[in-house]
């Protein structure tokens, strides 16, 4: 074999909240665990999460119940979230959140000394009957930052071995498709290494950079989804992309839903609080898909603000300087920096902006990656050696629309769950699958392709084109013919990207090489999104079609499964069998 091998019990790819929660679990138990991250872990995108982590810890309301949280999440998912997974998340959540406090996360506090909770969209008491709940645990508006730094600190304490600024480029599988580890590049030296492990955990985060306008960090290029698809593994519900109602117009920078939780609201160019028309009960705290669509309708109906009528406003000034500076200090900074607007005095220009990938690698609650079962009903089959947690995974707790604050909960609950499960498996004796030299050569071929490229289009130009195709053909509102055009454009882009050129072949800290490898992943995610979006002939959650405006429970109360080999969309059953509560039956979804 031509490259160096490093061996661990478990490797985690990705140093965000999910990855570091998983690695922490395994490191605490003394297993040899490596965390491979393309950036220093505290630069991961979890750091940008603002508003909080939703969980029924019964601080704001002593009678709060995780089952109410579960009801909200099932409804928010437009009924294609798996009820066993949602049950697990909402039930285990409080324990996972209290652990974070014990680790030192600096949550904001109530007068009683408990964790501060704020209202967020889609939250209710008593199964939708008891009015708005306040269930999102917050550290001011910097919850993700506080969480990510806390987890990094705990991993330091517990001796996780970090490979920071190492880029995982490809999965390594044996001839039977069992996962043996990954090929990764040490960005600083340029060396390519095979990381061998019994368990490979993908925690690579989202892929928001497939869109031209996104709240996502520049590093969110779908590396895990790309690797899985190239390995012939399926992705689930990948057409479901959340557009966050309040990205700063032009800049794309996120403004937390917590602003509306604290009492802010949206207005159109006439100053009208338009959400009262679209969601008479929840108003500005309706679910994100509902609010984003309402904003787009205002804009399309000519009530958008600005010279191009292309945004609306988020009004906060009525909350007063004191509340804004104590509860939303980060937002005040961002608005001044990116919108030249001081929210104490004027409203912030906002527009729905790509924010979150609900779909991803299908898994069970233990993070085990599920493979295509040939379209037959029955028990899931797993990919030996591969796990996925966090945004890259589709477990699925978010279904067709994620509720605000559920992302951070997903990260810690399922990062922890995967860690616990792998620990147990390792104790029982997990198999280390051994790849042949040709399996490794196969995994290296993509890196080699770029290193040997001698002409062709540039990475940055192709990336821009891809992002504009996704923005224009697969946005908030979708339509069959427009999507078909988009799919064709992506097929053309695939051809051109396969011949694109990396000019800089140097080894030390070559970020051009990393951007080239990321482009391959963007393409995989974009194509899967496009084909799945065209294939789901209904409107559900974040997937909203002009040509199929209604939810179609008869045909589509199911997950979509994209098979990358056939480039076809299949279906997978949604779990309607929670273990300790009655099933929440699908009903009309209004706010």
């Amino acid at each position, binding site marked *: 074999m031509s490259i160096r091998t490093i061996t661990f019990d478990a490797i985690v790819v990705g140093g965000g909240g999910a990855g570091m929660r998983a690695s922490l679990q395994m490191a605490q138990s003394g297993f040899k665990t490596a965390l491979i991250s393309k950036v*220093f872990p505290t630069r991961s995108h979890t750091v940008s999460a603002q508003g909080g982590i939703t969980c029924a810890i019964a601080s704001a309301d002593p009678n709060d119940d995780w089952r109410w949280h579960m009801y909200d999440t099932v409804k928010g998912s437009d009924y294609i979230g798996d009820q066993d997974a949602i049950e697990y998340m909402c039930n285990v959540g409080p324990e996972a959140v209290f652990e974070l406090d014990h680790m*030192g996360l600096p949550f904001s*506090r109530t007068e009683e*000394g408990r964790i501060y909770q704020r209202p967020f969209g889609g939250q209710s008491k008593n199964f939708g009957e008891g009015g708005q709940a306040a269930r999102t645990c917050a550290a001011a508006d910097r919850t993700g930052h506080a969480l990510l730094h806390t987890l990094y600190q705990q991993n330091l304490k517990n001796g996780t071995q970090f490979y920071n600024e190492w880029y995982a480029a490809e999965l390594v599988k044996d001839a039977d498709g069992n996962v043996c580890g990954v090929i990764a590049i040490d960005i600083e030296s340029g060396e390519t290494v095979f990381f061998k492990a019994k368990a490979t955990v993908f925690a690579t985060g989202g892929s928001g950079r497939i869109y031209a306008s996104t709240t996502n960090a520049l590093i969110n290029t779908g590396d895990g989804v790309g690797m899985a698809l190239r390995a012939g593994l399926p992705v689930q519900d990948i057409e479901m992309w959340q557009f966050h109602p309040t990205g700063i117009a032009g800049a794309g920078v996120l403004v937390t839903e917590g602003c509306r939780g604290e009492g802010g609201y949206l207005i159109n160019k006439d100053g009208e609080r338009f959400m009262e028309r679209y969601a008479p009960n929840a108003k500005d705290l309706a679910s994100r898909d509902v609010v984003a669509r309402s904003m787009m309708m205002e804009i399309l109906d000519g009530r958008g603000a600005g010279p191009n009528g292309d945004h609306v406003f988020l009004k906060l000034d009525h909350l007063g300087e004191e509340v804004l500076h104590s509860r939303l200090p980060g937002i005040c900074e961002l608005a001044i920096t990116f919108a030249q607007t001081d929210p104490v005095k004027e409203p912030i220009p906002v527009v729905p902006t790509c924010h979150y990938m609900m779909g991803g690698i299908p898994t069970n609650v233990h993070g085990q990656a599920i493979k295509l079962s040939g379209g037959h009903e029955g028990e899931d089959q797993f990919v030996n050696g591969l796990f996925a947690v966090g945004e890259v995974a589709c477990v699925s707790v978010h279904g067709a629309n994620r509720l605000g604050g559920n992302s951070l909960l997903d990260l810690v609950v399922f990062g922890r769950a995967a860690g616990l499960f792998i620990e147990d498996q390792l104790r029982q004796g997990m198999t280390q699958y051994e790849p042949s030299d040709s399996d490794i050569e196969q995994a290296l071929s993509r890196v080699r392709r770029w290193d040997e490229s001698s002409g062709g289009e*540039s990475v940055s*130009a192709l990336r821009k084109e891809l992002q504009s195709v996704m923005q224009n053909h697969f946005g908030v509102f979708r339509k069959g013919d427009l999507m078909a055009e988009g799919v064709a454009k992506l097929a053309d882009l695939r051809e051109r990207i396969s011949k694109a050129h*990396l000019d800089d072949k140097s080894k*030390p800290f070559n970020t*051009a090489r990393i*951007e080239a490898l990321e482009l391959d992943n963007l393409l995989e995610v974009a194509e899967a999104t496009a084909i799945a979006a065209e294939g789901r002939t209904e409107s559900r959650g974040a997937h909203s079609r002009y040509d199929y405006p209604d939810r179609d429970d008869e045909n589509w109360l199911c997950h979509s499964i994209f098979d990358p080999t056939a480039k076809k969309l299949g279906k997978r059953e949604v779990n309607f069998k929670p273990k300790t509560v009655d099933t929440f039956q699908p009903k009309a979804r209004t706010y």
Partner: protein
Amino acid sequence: MKVSIYRYNPETDREPTMKEYEVDTQGKDLMVLDILALVKEQDESMSYRRSCREGVCGSDGMNMNGKNGLACITPLSQVAPGVLEGKKPLILRPLPGLPVIRDLVVDMGMFYNQYEKVQPFLQNSTPAPAIERLQTPEDRAKLDGLYECILCACCSTSCPSFWWNPDKFLGPAALLQSYRFLADSRDTATEERLSKLDDPFSLFRCHGIMNCVSVCPKGLNPTRAIGHIRSMLLERGI
């Protein structure tokens, strides 16, 4: 406008050089990070770190016309007078005082080592309760201005004491984090933490120059935190 960027690739260059680029901003007050992206479109071999592009991840700390800051939240108009108008070039260098890996990318190893030395994690010797450890809003407020640090290294790499003793003086960023745990009502390791700082270098090499305060992109005040630790050490000595 003209942009002058520090270039060094250890594979091919014997010494660093400043390379000039011409960038068309269309008169817009772009962020420095936007300028770097435009330069990279022209010359993909120019390397820099970036991630969140909104000033919360701390990747793109660099020296802009002589002052450390984050490229992603520094508009041209704030770099120096005349830069936005194109009367003066934008001059970008790596953070000073740390070894350069390539171009604008520095080796942060020494910086992270000092961070790790302060045991930047909560320590509490009492058993954890079934819920959260209670903390009053007043006690929690003591962490404001401390926990927000993003580890960008703008402060430590602008500190002459850190330049001189990067291995022995912990530097403003690490000391700010040290105080973040000393100030946390949930932490019980105060005595151990203080005894580790009680030598001539770790803390006492701070001479109150306050460069850290003037460059911190998050508006934090490491000098004040260092002052609090000094007081705690003094009280402990009495």
